[in-house]
């Protein structure tokens, strides 16, 4: 830990003019590297907090699944694997284009950047549309905990409370919380990518200043990674 970099040994560049406008160097940093690395460290710390934020849901999931395996086997029958898998592919693809966007920014390819961001945005929207269809169906058959009145069994037959596990609503509590929180993250991502898109239309990103693209992409990948876990945990339970 003690060897971790500080600006200590770097030459002091107090004169900001040395780095011209295009570096967007804030007054309290000495060099663009210091600024960039601070930002990088900040965003990684933030991603760490995101993981711990979601960890609560994973803990709840794990404990209930371990203690009530039957509940999970039964309930995951309600979920549509095809939709889940489609969404997985959509998100993975958007991750690719997000990474591509960063590359374009780093290489000063403005057009490529705009296209890559636009595709990412489209994928994010697609994801939300599919989620919406799924949610709508769940709510329609009464599987929303707040308005709990199940009408169907997983196979579509009439709901039979004698067969369904007594704490079925907890599975859907967990399902809606996990996918809901993830969905909120996707929505935030949509906002951020739109913002990037506008700025890249204005040509604000260059090989010297691409931090926002880089950081939003990192955020977007974390959203993807979380989904990579949610998908098998919720949809692919052997019944």
């Amino acid at each position, binding site marked *: 830990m003690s060897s971790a970099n500080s600006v200590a040994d770097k030459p002091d560049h107090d004169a900001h003019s040395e780095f011209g406008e295009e570096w967007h160097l804030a007054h309290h940093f000495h060099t663009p590297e210091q600024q960039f690395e601070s930002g990088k460290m900040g965003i990684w710390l933030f991603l760490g907090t995101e993981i711990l934020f979601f960890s609560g849901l994973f803990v709840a999931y794990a*404990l209930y699944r371990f203690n009530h395996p039957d509940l999970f086997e039964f309930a995951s029958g309600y979920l549509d694997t095809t939709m889940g898998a489609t969404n997985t592919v959509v998100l993975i693809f958007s991750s690719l284009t997000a990474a591509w966007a960063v590359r374009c920014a780093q290489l000063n390819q403005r057009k490529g950047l705009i296209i890559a961001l636009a595709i990412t945005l489209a994928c994010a929207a697609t994801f939300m549309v599919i989620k919406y269809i799924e949610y709508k169906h769940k709510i329609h058959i009464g599987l929303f905990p707040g308005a709990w009145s199940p009408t169907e069994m997983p196979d579509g037959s009439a709901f039979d409370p004698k067969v369904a596990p007594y704490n079925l609503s907890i599975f859907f509590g967990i399902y809606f919380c996990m996918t809901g929180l993830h969905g909120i993250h996707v929505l935030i991502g949509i906002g951020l990518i739109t913002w990037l898109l506008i700025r890249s239309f204005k040509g604000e990103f260059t090989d010297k200043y691409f931090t926002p693209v880089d950081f939003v992409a990192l955020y977007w990948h974390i959203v993807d990674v979380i989904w990579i876990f949610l998908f098998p945990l919720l949809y692919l339970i052997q019944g």
Partner: protein
Amino acid sequence: MSHDDHGLSHISSLKTLFAVFALLLFFTAVTVGVSRFELGRWDLTIAMTIATVKAVIVSMYFMHLRYEKALNIVIFVSSILFAILFLGISALDATTYQDRIKEYRAVQPLEDN
């Protein structure tokens, strides 16, 4: 900073990006495919292993973690370790007190369900 360094940070080649994408698609297919077989308790293990592999390649290549400073890797990994700690210790307790809950449920009239 790593050797293949342009300006402020690492730039991935398109080849890498697409190779990673292809791998991710492949693993998605595998995990969906495997889930169709009855594998009992291996089910979860396999699904989680595949998910972990996918997450690792996303973070290594899409997120450039492989080329990151050690410090940032430490940050990321330790947040995962603390999440595991949280899970592990709560599970130690929450899985052992289940019999008290089961005992209780066993004597509840059915209408409570």
